[in-house]
């Protein structure tokens, strides 16, 4: 089934097209965050200006016409209201025009499911790490099929933590990739380590690292903050793996682009004879293809939503979304 997916929960307006789980196109335009962060209304305006062009570009790159599209998916949430609104309206307009079914998708589920499907995993422990999210999840069939949160951050997401630190160092924030570059060759200075069971928190680490900026070389701080944060994620993921007797680990979300994180998680998996799954760099960032993938599965399962019942939900919890 040829399905187009639209993602606009944050700074990316992404459009993807899939057919039978295969990605035919993935196009996007990103609002560039300056050093001051971003205003939702401004980003939404950016998305509005780009929507039609990105959709056309995706169709063109898949070599398809509008009339070839058989279904539509869009990000229902979570995300910023004004941004979600743009994707939702574009999807609704398309669905009306093309008279095809539409499926609202949970953003987190899309990250996890696209990673799970592409890396060929059955029932993994999923570490979902992006700007605002850091969660450890696993599929649960009761009372309906959904991803259950086994552990998560008590405060900020690991991506935001690394980005805030990058900004303090006057580096470009990008889910930690600037920290990763800077960390090479650094040596460890002691950092706080905060784990409770399968939960963790990052503000203590951030505060401490920021307070050391004047006295410790930046590369040592980048190395240390990264090692401490990833060790926390690795330890809690390991605990989830053992508690659930699982034999697969996958990592997804923007921070999954960090190669040191992948290396660490691979060691966790290896130690317990588990498989480790991840997907190609760019697919970890927000994109429309992951929305299309989940939407296709929903539509094939007969789970479309009538156009007038579609909406957005800024706080759409990952564990309240049914998975097909």
């Amino acid at each position, binding site marked *: 089934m040829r399905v187009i997916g639209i993602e606009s929960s944050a700074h990316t307006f992404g459009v993807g097209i899939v057919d039978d789980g295969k990605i035919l196109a993935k196009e996007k335009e990103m609002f560039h965050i300056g050093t001051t962060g971003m205003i939702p209304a401004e980003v939404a305006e950016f998305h509005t200006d780009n929507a039609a062009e990105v959709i056309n570009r995706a169709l063109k790159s898949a070599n398809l016409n509008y009339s070839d599209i058989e279904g539509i998916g869009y990000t229902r949430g979570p995300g910023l209201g004004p941004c979600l609104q743009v994707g939702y309206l574009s999807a609704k307009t398309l669905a009306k025009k093309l008279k095809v079914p539409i499926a609202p998708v949970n953003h987190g589920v899309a990250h996890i499911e696209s990673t799970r499907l592409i890396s060929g995993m059955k029932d993994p422990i999923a570490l979902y790490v992006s700007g*605002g*999210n850091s969660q450890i999840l696993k599929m649960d069939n009761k009372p309906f099929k959904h991803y259950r949160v086994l552990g998560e951050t008590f405060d900020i997401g690991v991506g935001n933590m690394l980005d805030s630190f990058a900004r303090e160092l006057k580096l470009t924030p990008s889910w930690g990739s600037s920290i990763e570059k800077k960390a090479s060759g650094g040596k*460890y200075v002691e950092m706080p380590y905060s784990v409770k*069971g399968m939960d963790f928190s990052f503000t203590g680490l951030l505060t401490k690292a920021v307070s050391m900026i004047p006295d410790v070389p930046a590369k040592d701080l980048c190395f240390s903050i990264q090692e401490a944060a990833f*060790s926390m994620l690795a330890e809690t993921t390991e605990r989830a793996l*053992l*508690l659930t007797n699982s034999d697969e680990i996958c990592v997804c979300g923007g921070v999954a682009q960090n190669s040191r994180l992948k290396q660490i*998680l691979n060691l966790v998996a290896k*130690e317990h004879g588990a498989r480790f799954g991840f997907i190609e760099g760019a697919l970890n960032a927000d994109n429309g293809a992951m929305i299309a993938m989940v939407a296709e599965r929903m539509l094939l399962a007969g789970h479309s939503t009538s156009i007038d019942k579609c909406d957005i939900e800024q706080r759409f919890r990952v*564990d309240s979304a049914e998975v097909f």
Partner: protein
Amino acid sequence: MVIGEGAEAQIYLENILGLEMVVKVRQRKEYRIPEIDEPMRRRRTRKEAGLMIVASKAGINVPHVIAVGKFSIYMEKIGGKLLKDIQNSKTYMEKVGKELARMHDSGIVHGDYTPANIMISGNETTIIDFGLADMSLDPEQKAVDLLLMKRSVTRGMYAHFEHAYVNASRNGTAVKKQLAETERRGRYQSRTLS
């Protein structure tokens, strides 16, 4: 002989001078750099042994600590099985809820209170793995102990546990309220942006 493998330690059964005991050794983790790994293992070993002794003095059923090394704790061997490996029941959940209430009332938070760290022998429960435990009266930390259990068992089983905890604990209601707050903060958190 290795008898158990937890998240961070290996458990050996050793016969020392005719005495059968369990040795918990925190192994080196390849995934952490040694600068993080070594002090952490040393710190946790010392702390765990200390808190087991405190808990035992407070009348909580824990393995008796025999000796403590750099990365190892020598302790009494507990018979039976882990709660996570047996058919759960209302009786166990209530017992385990009451035990947590007593532990909290004596100033200890466990930090990893799940069926993987509770042993059952007959109708006796023994709490193990104080590796993430702490001395604290903070309702927030206590709530985390409930939250971990909540995430590890079915809704129905958790209800028995919570009920017994709230009835037995000195600040049960406050902790329950804090739990709701902690869950709200964590789970309903919207995606914030850089």
